[in-house]
Each structure stands twice: as C-alpha cells, then as structure tokens.
C-alpha cells in the first residue's frame, strides 16, 4: 500500500467522517476519530520518510497523468506541513473525547466528530495536493466544518463568532477561487508544477498580477494576517476548547502553507520578491501584527482571547520569516509553523483543562490554580515560556532563525522589534503565571486537577515543545531543506 501513501493521507479521515455521522454511539465515534487521526500521523511520517529517501512523491489520481488529471505531489514542504497537522490531530483527538463531553450535547457528539474529521480531511487535502483547484475544494471542506465546529462553543457568542468567520472565510475563499480562475484562463492549466512552467510566459500580463493579488489577499484572510485577522480572536475564544486547540495549531498553518505554495512554487521566488516586491509588502504588515497584537494581548482579561491575539502576533512572525526572502527566513517560517503549533496547542489545551474544571477562562479565575491544578498550570508555564522564546524551548529555536535572518539582511530594527515583542509576550504570559502561582485560591473548590484524559495530551505537546527545543536538529534540518525547495521553485 506504500505506493498509495499520498492518497491514504486524506482517505483515512475522509472515510471515517461519514461513518462517524452514521454512528449513534458517541464513544464509538470518538474512538474512530482518534484512530483516523493516528493513522493520519502514521501516513504523514511515512511520507516524510519517503520524501527524504526519494525526493518528490507524485501520485496520479484516477491514473490520469498530470496535468490531465489531479496530481498529489509531496515534497519536503508539504510533507512537513502534513506531519504538523498529523501530530496535532493525533494529540488533540484524544483530548477532544474528554473535553467535548462537557461542552457538546451528547446526541450531537458523533456529528461533532464527523465535522472534526472533515476539517482534518480538508486541511490535509490542501496540503497534499499538487492541483490548485483541488486546493480550493478541500479548503471549502475544511472551512465549512470549521465554522460548524466553532459554532459548537457554549453560549450565543460562539454563533456570532462562527458567523463572522463564515463571512470573512467565504470572502477569502472567493478571492482564492477568482485567483485560480484567472490563472486558468491565462494558462489553461490547474496543475501547480505545470503552472510554474507556464506562468513565466505571461508574467507581464495584468491578469496574472491581479490573480497574484487575489490569491494573496485570500490566503491572508485565511491565515489571519493583520489587518485581516478580525474573525480570529472571537472564533478562538468562544469555540470549544478542543476545537480551538486544533484550529489554532493547524488551520492557520495550512493557510500559510497555501500562501507559500502559491507565491513561491507556482509564481516562484524571482517573481514574488522581484516583480511583486512581496517582501516589502509583507514586512510592514508582519511587524505591525507582531507589535500591535502583542500589545492587544497584554490588555486581555480572558485568557483564551489573550492567546488568540497572541496567535495573530505569532502569525506575524511566520509572515516576517517569509518577507525576509531568504533561506534562513523561510526556515524560521517553516520551523515556527511546527513550533507554534506545539506550544499554542499546549497552551489552549491547558486553558481547556481550566475551563473544564471552573467553567471560565477569565484571568481572575486563574488565581491560585498553580496549587490547585499544578500539572495544568505547569503545562501552561512551559507553553508560555516557549511563547516568550526562552532557550531550550521550541519558541527560542524559531526566534533564533528569525533574528539571524533579519541580521543577515542587515535589518536591525526588525531584529529589535522581534525581541521587544518577545518581551510583550513575557508580559502577557507572566500575568497569567503570576495570577496562578502568586495569588491565593478564592474559588469554591471546583478547581481540582484535570482528568488524565485532558492532562495527558496537554503534556504531550508541552513536553514536545521542550524536547524539540533541546533537540531541534532534525526539525531544523527538515525545515531548512523545505525552505531550500521553496526558494528554488519547483521541487525536484
């Protein structure tokens, strides 16, 4: 079956989703969701291994040779993204079983898992495909199910948040499909590798440039780049905990991947950084995102919202790496996709544990939890330190490459902004840590340590964000290879 790895990647959750919808038993559906997620990770790792061994893996769906048919095409870049999504899915899905039972009505749980699996399918489908229209199709799958998942949060505000995301997300998707359409009109092809060959002939046309713009804006809406981030904070704050953890660690990451794919593989680095001056467009946006959103995060009183704003700021780091327009910068971007997924996942999951016990993510509710829920808060501390970028955590590794990339380009102020923003991160993380550890507990005794079903997955990510901070060699090597692939255009 190893020949079919690329398609199996998507097939596992895709087949499991309708089965979940057919099931009546929440337990069976949950077990199936976990199994499918684990299968996803296994396939992703196998794929990464194969890409390492043989280079690009291409799979012609329906036996139609690309560009006639749809091609699945995996190189270092998407193998890496697939591993990120697979990792998060396989950690979050067991967490989901424990957390969803308290947040979602029992009868709806099988459907909830179906939606989760569909969302996973969509994200993986975007990452694995080598066909631009196929990207759009799977983008729709992931988006629709993500809206539904977010709406499952408790309280009415989850509904408005989901609706807002739906509107902005649909606009983004429309922009992307317009861009794809224009590209098709100009080249007659939908295959990415094919497009990369055909596009240079028509680089000069206005249509291609407009297509570039539409794709860019569409992707930036999806990845919540400032100032197109407005949907994100509420969506993350009001969604069920497990959904927040999952989406925060995967959805925006895949959107970033989409942007990289469109801009660097299809259009190519020379066009993006040369003709379109992408680096100069993105740099100010990234810097403003980093600085302003970190400041906004400092002001939040709801910790989930705080983390959500921090996510927008972190997306700024990711985009900043891209705007450095160098292998080092892109290494930082790709590393941070993984590293941020680990730490933000751990943070949101720790918050989920808190919400599970005390029903609130307000910062005042954290008082004294350092003693009442020591493991939960310790996981939060680890994730928080990583967010700040303390050495020996994953956050440090990506920040290192980001600063190195900035200095290599001689952009000193950029390096300084990155460092100062880490201090803002320190401020907002430390507010929570100090409240949890230094203030006495004032609640009514509900706050006891979270059940192992929640705690274990949380700690897997927390531990991983230390492990990959201490032994970052393999992740850095992979990210660097992927960055080279991106800079060189079509992977070979």
């Amino acid at each position, binding site marked *: 079956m190893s020949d079919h790895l690329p398609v199996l990647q998507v097939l596992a959750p895709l087949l499991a989703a309708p089965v979940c919808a057919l099931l009546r038993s929440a337990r069976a559906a949950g077990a199936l969701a976990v199994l499918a997620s684990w299968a996803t990770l296994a396939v992703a790792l196998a794929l990464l291994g194969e890409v390492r061994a043989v280079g690009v893996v291409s799979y012609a769906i329906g036996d139609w040779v690309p560009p006639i048919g749809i091609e699945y095409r995996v190189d270092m870049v998407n193998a890496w993204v697939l591993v990120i999504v697979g990792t998060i899915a396989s950690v979050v899905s067991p967490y989901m079983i424990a957390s969803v039972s308290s947040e979602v009505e029992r009868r709806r749980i099988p459907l909830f898992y179906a939606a989760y699996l569909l969302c996973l399918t969509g994200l993986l489908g975007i990452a694995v495909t080598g066909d631009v229209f196929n990207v759009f199709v799977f983008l729709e799958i992931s988006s629709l199910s993500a809206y539904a998942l977010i709406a499952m949060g408790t309280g009415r505000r989850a509904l408005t948040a989901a609706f807002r995301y739906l509107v902005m997300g649909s606009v983004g998707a429309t922009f992307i499909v317009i861009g794809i359409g224009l590209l098709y009109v100009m080249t007659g092809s939908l295959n990415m590798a094919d497009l990369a060959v055909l596009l240079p002939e028509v680089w000069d046309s206005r249509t291609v440039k407009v297509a570039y713009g539409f794709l860019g804006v569409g992707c930036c809406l999806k990845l919540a780049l400032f100032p197109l981030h407005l949907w994100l904070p509420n969506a993350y704050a009001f969604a069920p905990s497990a959904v927040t953890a999952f989406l925060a660690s995967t959805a925006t990451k895949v959107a970033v991947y989409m942007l990289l794919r469109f801009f660097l593989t299809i259009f190519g680095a020379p066009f993006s950084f040369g003709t379109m001056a992408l680096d100069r467009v993105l740099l100010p946006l990234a810097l403003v995102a980093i600085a302003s959103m970190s400041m906004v995060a400092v002001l939040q009183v709801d910790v989930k919202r705080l983390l959500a704003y921090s996510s927008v700021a972190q997306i700024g780091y990711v985009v900043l790496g891209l705007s450095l327009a160098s292998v080092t910068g892109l290494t930082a971007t790709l590393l941070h996709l993984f590293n941020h997924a680990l730490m933000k996942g751990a943070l949101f999951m720790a918050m989920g544990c808190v919400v599970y016990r005390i029903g609130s993510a307000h910062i005042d509710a954290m008082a004294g939890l350092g003693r009442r829920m020591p493991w939960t808060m310790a996981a939060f501390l680890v994730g928080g330190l990583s967010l700040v970028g303390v050495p020996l955590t994953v956050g440090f590794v990506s920040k290192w490459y980001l600063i190195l990339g900035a200095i*290599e380009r001689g952009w000193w102020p950029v390096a300084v902004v990155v460092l100062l923003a880490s201090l803002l991160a320190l401020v907002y993380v430390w507010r929570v840590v100090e409240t949890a550890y230094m203030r006495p507990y004032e609640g009514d005794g509900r706050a006891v340590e979270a059940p192992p079903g929640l705690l274990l997955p949380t700690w897997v990510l927390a531990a991983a964000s230390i492990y990959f901070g201490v032994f970052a060699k393999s992740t850095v090597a992979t990210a660097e290879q992927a960055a080279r692939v991106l800079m060189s255009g079509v992977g070979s």
Partner: protein
Amino acid sequence: MLGLSLALPVAGAVSIALLRRSPNAREAASLLTAGALFAIVLRIYASVSGGGRPSLALAEPIPGISVTLEAEPLGVLFALVASFLWIVTTMYSIGYMRGNRESNQTRYYLFFAFAIASAMGVAFAGNLFTLFVFYELLSLTTFPLVTHAGTAKARRAGRVYLGILLTTSIAFLLLAIVWTYAVAGTLDFRQGGILAGEVAGAAVPVLLGLYVFGIGKAAVMPLHRWLPAAMVAPTPVSALLHAVAVVKAGVFAVLKVTVYVFGIDFLAEAGASAWLTWVAAATIILGSLVALTKDNLKARLAYSTVSQLSYVVLGAMLASTLGVGGGGAHIVTHAFGKITLFFCAGAIYVAAHKTEVSQMRGLGRTMPVTMAAFLIGALSVVGVPPLAGSVSKWYLLGATLDSGQIALAAVLVVSTLLNVAYLLPIPILAFLSKPEGETAGGGPQGGTVLNEAPAWCLIALSFVALGCIALIFWADRAFQLLQPIAAAAGG
C-alpha cells in the same frame, strides 16, 4: 565530572521534593548535596589547575550551536565560590528559615538547589549559547525565591526582578549573541576571542555595550533597579543573589565575554571598552552614594553590591591581564565579604527583628559574635589589609594605573572612602553607643542578656567571616589560576 556538577544539584532538588514531609531529612539532603558538589568542583579545579580543559557536549539544539560544558579557570573559580558558599548558605538557611517560621520551606530549598544547578551551568558554559541558557534558567529559578513571601510587595518586586533581567537578556544579550553568530559563525569561547577581525569600527563598542547591558545581572547602572527591589526576599536568598550566584554570574559572564569572545588584545586595540569603563566608574561612585543615604540595612548593602559589581566590570573593561585577574579575584573576595554582611543582617533580623541601621545602637552588646563578624566583613569589603578584599582591590588599582587611567584610580580611592563611610558606622554604632532605651547617664545594667541568632546562623556567619581573613592566603592563588587565560592572550 562536569555533568555531575549539574546533575547533583538537580538530584538534590528531587530528593528535597521527595523528602518534603520530613524537614530534617530534607535539610540533610540539602547539606549533603552541597557538600558533595563542592567536592566535585574541587576535583574539577584540580584537573583544570593542572592545565586540563575537561568538556562535555550535552545537546545540539540548533545545528552548529550546542549546549556544551567546559571547565576553564574563570569558571572553576566561580564554581568554587558558588558551591562552597552553598554549603554555608544552606546551614544558615536552616537557622534562618526555622527561626523565622517561614512557610513553603520545601519550595525554598528546591529552587535554591535549582538555582545552584543553573549557576554551575553558567560557570562551566562552553559557549555563549550555553551561557545564555543557564543565565536565563538562573533568572527563572530564582524568581520563586525572590517572591518567597508571596505578598503584593513581593510580587511587585518579583516583576521588577524578572522584568529587568529577562528584558535585558532578551533585548540586548540575545541580540548580541545572534549578531556574534552572524559575523563569527560560532559561539564557542576561545582563547583570544572569536570576534577579532570579524567586526570593526563603531560596531565593536556597540556590540560590547549590548553585552554589558544585556547581562543585567551585572547591575551596571541604570539597569541595577532589580537588585534593591529583590531585597524583599528572605536574607539567605539575598545572600544567594549577592554573593553566591546571581550577581556573580552576571559579572562572571561579563569577564567571560571580554576574555573569550572579544579577547583582551582585540578589545584593547579597538579601544571599544573605554566608554564602558566610565559607565562602570559612575556606577561605582553613584552606588556608594546611594548606599550612604539608605537607613535600611539590606538596602544599603544592596547598593553597596551595585557599586562593588562595577569593580569587576571595570576590571574587565580595562582589557588587561591585571584587570581581568583583579576582576576575577574580586568575584571571590566580594562574595565572602558581602555574604558575611548579609548573614549578619539576617541574624540581626531573626534575633532582634531590626532592619534599620539607626536601630542598631548598642547591638554589639547583645549580639557580639554577629557584630564582630559584621566588622570583619565590612573591613574586607572596604579593602583593609590583611583582609581578603584588599587583594583584589589592589590588583584593580594596579590595573587602572597600569593603563594610565589616573582618573579611574581616583574613582577607586574615592569609592573606598565612601565604603568606609557607609559600612563602618554600623559596627561602631553597635559597639560604642548605648542601646536604645537606656538612659544616657545610666550605668551598666549589669546583666546585658546575650541574644544571638540561632546556632546554625552563627556557625555559618562566623565561618564566612573567618573566610574573609583566611582568603588572603588564597586570593593570590585565585589570581594565579587566572594567569594562564590572560597570559595566553598575550596581555
């Protein structure tokens, strides 16, 4: 060996946590670990003084940048001081914490052990990255100690403490490190430095400035605020901060950067450190002046530390063999002098509950041992021969004269006078004037009751006071130990 020097305190911390139900066993474990650690550091010293450079690679988080331990003279010196004073401080802590009935004692010993482990990491850091890692760990592990009381005041102080230390280290030190890596392609500490020929012109003083201010633990003004703020901590913690680990880690890091990253020769050639000698000089004088105005004993001692630390920074910035050697020696001698003073301050608080200098009239009668130790410590810090402090001061003075900086020599002299002015009145007040409440003309009340601190405290503080005297024989040895690094640099 090197690995053990890190693992041992961590293991100690674990056993402390495991033994939390039995205070006696817990403290025994603490003491035992401290003793064992000192023994290990002694063996490392033996190997290094024989010319060895044992090293150990732990991990390689980022390709080309590893966490590596390597023992070299400067580090061994720092490790010796820290591990030895850990034993004494543990003894003192037992008396102090029990005498004061402090809460959360397990947490206290636990993080103390972690802090020592971090300090060992700083001491034996084989490259800048490792130094940075353990430097940050040291900030984080000492945070719970500084905020031990848990009051709103302690929380505020903790915020200042962590805020300044992490801010400077992330904003300046990390930037300097990445910069160094970008130009030199390595972060290893090397004899003679790694930057020579890689940077030039105005970049050199700027980079050096980033390092000196980035190492906030060295408390160069205006980044010294955290040190007085951290005075809310229990006294043994203050001892840890001022003498054993934290500030010493700071000035130690400055020395290391000077010697192994820039290289003395390169610095001297580039003249990059001149402006920083004046910053250090200003800190020396201003710190002393502020100390004069403080009535609170611990605050006065804190500013004294700020001032004294800049001696070491000054030594480093002079970029000469004598300067570096004197700075290194000053780490040791000041550690002993200042820890004596802090132990005394703590003892006075435990026994008499007095914190202000003006309350200490006649205290010499009820606490003769403590005040005698205080006198010794004070004299040592002032630099009166034959006490330990005189040796390092002498070297530093020599270094300033050597480099022809008469003004800097004058700074040292003035500072010494200021030291006298803010330290000596305390023992004088204690011994020569009458206790409060006693009427001026009243005769001796016959039985002045001795009211000393708990025995553990007394033992510890007498020990370090004696150390101040004994060290005169060793200070030269420390200087000798440092000779090879400076000499090889051709200074």
